[in-house]
């Protein structure tokens, strides 16, 4: 049984980073992840970590410095959000194709404009095609646990990873979390084993690959990326053996006999569990599927849960301009295409820019689902909720 502590999730993230004690952290602070960098710099100043801390002048420089250090074999971390992640975009693609296992903590936030510092999933959604592993936490405990697991996941997969939690809703809230001792964390993640030596091996970093070889590189990257799902499962199991908290790519909540299943990511999953409990007590067969691994999409795991549902309600705290629905809805819909008999599916765009989603909103979504099952589907497949009409 670990020690229970209560601190703001950003501070907890810095605490987890200090337990990991990376070789290099290069960072530029941005709301709502500022305190991660701020608190971590205190661990550096107090001599509690051995990290080389590189304060840089922008997020583009932060991720560039991280990439340089990672390709030299270092264990590397940083933190960012929103426009900061957007400014990193160019280098994100190079980091994943360079197979650099950088771990980035993201307090997910709306993208400007209009300027908004609050929580939604637009930032992580906007970089879903950058070849990074993206994990989303429900609460402080999972945020801590994901950050610790991010190191073995990234290093075994040889891909960079983002572990995110919701800006302000989670980042600036104090909750109880059970934590490991630093020695336990060190034992769990093990020492960094570089795949090569930049001093002894003959190699080229940042290669040029034109028509004769680029597509082969990409196919290899795509194939290896697909293996991430199993690595996330394996690390989640090993972490469970250590802590008692087992993790998978998804989390099922009352789904086995559910007629209506809600699919959701982040802090809203907790609120939705409360509503599921209330509606179950009233005799409604509703359940919840929480997506923990947003990228790569754990397709088989998702299908195995949703295949028996009559209606699936996909909740997106993000949207795509002119898309078929929100980013999560697009993925879930595509995954379900393989089924011979698909459930009714609907998409709810909610909570953008930190707009509060209340239990009453979630109940309404479930009720829409129950109605669709009794009748013949949805009048409207994509709905915006928590929005003033």
């Amino acid at each position, binding site marked *: 049984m670990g020690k*229970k502590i*209560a601190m703001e999730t950003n501070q907890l993230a810095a605490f987890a980073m200090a337990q990991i004690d990376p070789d290099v952290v290069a960072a530029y602070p941005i709301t709502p992840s500022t305190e991660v960098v701020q608190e971590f710099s205190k661990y550096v100043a107090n001599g509690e970590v051995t990290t080389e801390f590189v304060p840089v002048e922008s997020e583009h420089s932060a991720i560039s410095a991280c990439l340089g250090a990672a390709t030299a074999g270092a264990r590397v971390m940083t933190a960012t959000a929103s426009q900061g992640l957007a400014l990193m975009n160019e280098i994100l693609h190079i980091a994943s194709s360079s197979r650099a296992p950088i771990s980035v903590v993201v307090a997910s936030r709306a993208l400007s404009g209009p300027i908004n*510092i*609050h929580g939604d999933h637009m930032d992580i959604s906007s970089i879903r095609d950058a070849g990074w592993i993206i994990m989303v936490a*429900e*609460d402080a405990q999972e945020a801590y646990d994901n950050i610790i697991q991010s190191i073995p996941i990234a290093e075994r997969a040889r891909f960079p990873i983002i572990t995110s939690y*919701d800006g*302000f*809703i*989670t980042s*600036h*809230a*104090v*909750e*109880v979390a059970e934590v490991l001792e630093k020695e336990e964390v060190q034992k769990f993640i093990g020492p960094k084993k570089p795949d090569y030596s930049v001093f002894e091996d003959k190699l080229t970093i940042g290669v040029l690959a034109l028509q004769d070889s680029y597509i082969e590189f990409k196919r290899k990257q795509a194939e290896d990326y697909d293996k991430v799902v199993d690595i996330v499962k394996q690390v989640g199991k090993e972490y469970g053996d250590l802590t008692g908290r087992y993790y998978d790519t998804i989390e099922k909540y009352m789904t086995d006999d559910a007629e209506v299943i809600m699919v959701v990511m982040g*802090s*809203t999953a*907790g*609120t939705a*569990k*409360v509503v599921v409990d209330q509606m179950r007590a009233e005799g409604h067969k509703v359940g919840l599927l929480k997506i923990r691994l947003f990228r790569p999409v754990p397709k088989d795991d998702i299908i195995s849960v949703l295949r028996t549902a009559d209606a699936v309600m996909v909740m997106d705290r993000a949207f795509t301009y002119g898309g078929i629905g929100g980013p999560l809805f697009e993925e879930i819909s595509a995954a379900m295409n393989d089924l011979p008999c698909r459930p009714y599916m609907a998409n709810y765009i909610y909570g953008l820019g930190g707009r*509060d*989603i*209340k*239990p009453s909103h979630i109940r309404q979504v479930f009720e829409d689902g129950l109605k669709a099952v009794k009748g013949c589907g949805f009048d409207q497949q994509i709905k915006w909720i928590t929005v003033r009409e």
Partner: protein
Amino acid sequence: MIENILEIRWHGRAGQGVKTASYLLAEAAMDLGKYIQAFPEYGPERMGAPMAAYTRISDEKILIHSGVENPDIIVVIDPTLVGTIDILKGVDLEKGIVIINSAMEPDMFRKKLPGFKGKLATVDATGIALDSIGRPIPNVPMIGALIKVTDLLPLKSVEEKLRHKFSEKFTEKIVEGNLKALERGYQEVRIDG
């Protein structure tokens, strides 16, 4: 009010220690084995602007992550907010508890809070703070008053948490002053209803 979760809303102005109060109470509860959440409401932040913070306390893990809609207890750290903003928003008018920082008797506030029939308490938290710590930061005596009115936690666990938390930041003199302020808030609160 959500089943099995106690919800507190703190009203005050930026700079009055509203967030600190919401955190301190939550952390003292955690030390007793409770599950907690504490979070401020973030808007455009500037000294003196009205702000709110929230504390949730439960015996079970708290899953809900939406805002507090129907608080059980309201703590008003700045009395000028009564009548300026709706401090009773979402409150059960029969069962709610309101604690206000004021030197006035609690029944003086009844007419400012039409329809409210719950427990109403006042304490001169600013006066106590000036006496004991020499600064008009009324958050700590308000916690003392809250403990007396609600019996939420033993005063001793708040004292221990306060000593531990404040010792990291402040001199021994300030810590002792705050402990005194906590005790006086507890002793001097006047309760109506």
